[in-house]
């Protein structure tokens, strides 16, 4: 790697590493070590193709999405995290908004990587179904059905999350 490319890469990391790490952390369900591995793998692939990559950030993100997609094609059934004692009820105190974020966030870590990836792309990344399908290499119908099932599972784990009407609205 020539010094100019290395400098560009370092500048890129300085500006974007936090956002990319956050995405990796979300995609791996809050597993810091898995997130580090996922991001490092994506960055390594990106840096080897640096000269031909038009948007490094988009490329890193796509590699991470695809990496997760590859991962859940073969292993996602074994990756759902079960806890011995699910929480009996929502925790309430004087900060309900924070609690809801915690409860839903906890539920996000307990769904499958496939479900989580679709929810992250749709609602955190704000991508339309068509774009999610393109990134994950599947059909729009698959994205739509996975979104529906993912939301239903999320509501099982976090009953405080919206209502049935809300789910219909977001998968429309």
């Amino acid at each position, binding site marked *: *790697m020539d010094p100019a490319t*290395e400098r560009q*890469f*370092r500048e890129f*990391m300085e500006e974007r*590493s*936090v956002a990319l*790490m*956050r*995405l*990796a*952390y*979300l995609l791996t369900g*809050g597993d*810091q*070590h*898995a*997130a*580090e*591995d996922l*991001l*490092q*793998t994506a*960055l*390594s692939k990106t*840096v*080897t193709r640096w000269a031909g990559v038009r948007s490094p950030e988009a490329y890193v993100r796509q590699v991470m999405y695809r990496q997760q997609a590859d991962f859940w094609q073969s292993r996602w059934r074994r990756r759902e995290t079960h*806890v*011995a004692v699910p*929480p009996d009820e929502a*925790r309430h*105190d004087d*900060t309900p*908004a*924070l*609690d*809801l*974020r*915690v*409860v*839903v*966030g*906890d*539920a*996000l*870590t307990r769904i499958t990587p496939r479900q989580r990836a679709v*929810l*992250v792309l749709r*609602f*955190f990344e704000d991508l339309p179904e068509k774009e999610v399908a393109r990134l994950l290499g599947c059909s729009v119908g698959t994205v739509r059905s996975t979104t529906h099932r993912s*939301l239903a599972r*999320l509501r099982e784990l976090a009953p405080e*999350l*919206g*209502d049935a009407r*809300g*789910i219909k*609205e*977001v998968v429309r």
Partner: protein
Amino acid sequence: MNTETQIKNACAHLSAQARVPAGLTDRVLAAERAPRRLRRPLGYSLAAGAAALLVGAGVGVTVTHRSAPKPTVRTIAPVTLSSDTSLRTDLGSTFPRHLVAAGHTAVAAYYTAHRGESGGIRRTWYLYDPGSGTYEKTPWAYLDVAPGMHQAAVIEGPLPAPRIGVLDMATRKVTRWISVGHKVGGVAWAPDGRRLVLTAYAKDPDVMAPPTGGPGSPQGSRTGFAVVDSTTGHGAFHALPPYPGAPGSRQDLGWSRSGTLVWAPTETDPAKVFYDLNGSPRPAPAHEADAMEDAGLSPNGTLQAKFGPPPGPAVTITNVTTGKKVTNLPIEQARAWADDGRLFAIGCAVKKCTGKGEFNNRLLLVTLQGKITPLTGYHRSDKLGAWVPVFTHR
């Protein structure tokens, strides 16, 4: 708030807990320059069942795998500072119930001490629960919290115990039990949040026993230490007898700032003696063996807090690179750095900081300019049952 917004908020909240590992850029570039066979994240090699004993850090270090004869290269990434630096206080009660945090540091746990049946100290531990946002009482006899506050290393009583557990703080479940073939009484996480140093003892380290070998003979029953990888449980034990004249029978090992060395306490100057991860003596890193307040060096490594000058209460902050005094702070103890400009401190009630009043104190946040923000309610720190905070990078 509709479902979409709720999920978006939850994602944002969850992702804010992510920490960019220090040295990530260098690691990627090093992998790019390395031979192709070495281009893989460490997690993969560990998941393959390799035993990892990390030696050295900061730059390149060697990872020795029991099942892999050839060493590979990996930079240990010290845990970086948190993106959540919000101020969290709990002023309402003597014992904190809600999270106490400032800057990059939080009170991740605390304990109260009581007299046990054998005459030793028994600790009751309260560990932060990220789900409820409160400290919850635990059954463990000893624990330490990993940087990032996602995991804790726990030891069952009575001490010393034959194994330690790696506890998921969110689920409150032990995800891995680690045994090193020796009974363990102390544990400390490395700055990388991955390795642990376990201190082994022949007897309960919290029971004071008179020296058996006459004056000057070792007081404790420490037998050695082991550095283990929390994700694989692999590591090696190294004999390390108690240090003559060291304070008390508990002589737990700790980590150097870089995570390349471990240290043991002494009662003399220097206050710490350092060893490499195989137990061989090593020179102390600059200023890390100085007798100073618990806070140690500031995160940027330039500031040091020392007790005094009398009559106090006072702690002096010195710039170790210039040797010049930066300021005197009106606090009793400097316990941990919140960031490079603020300290967690113990301070007593104004105008009552003399005689027994000095023990009626509470946890404070103090800036280098002397601005004080109370973090908890007052308590009597000289009584058994007082709470003792454990600080962790959050």
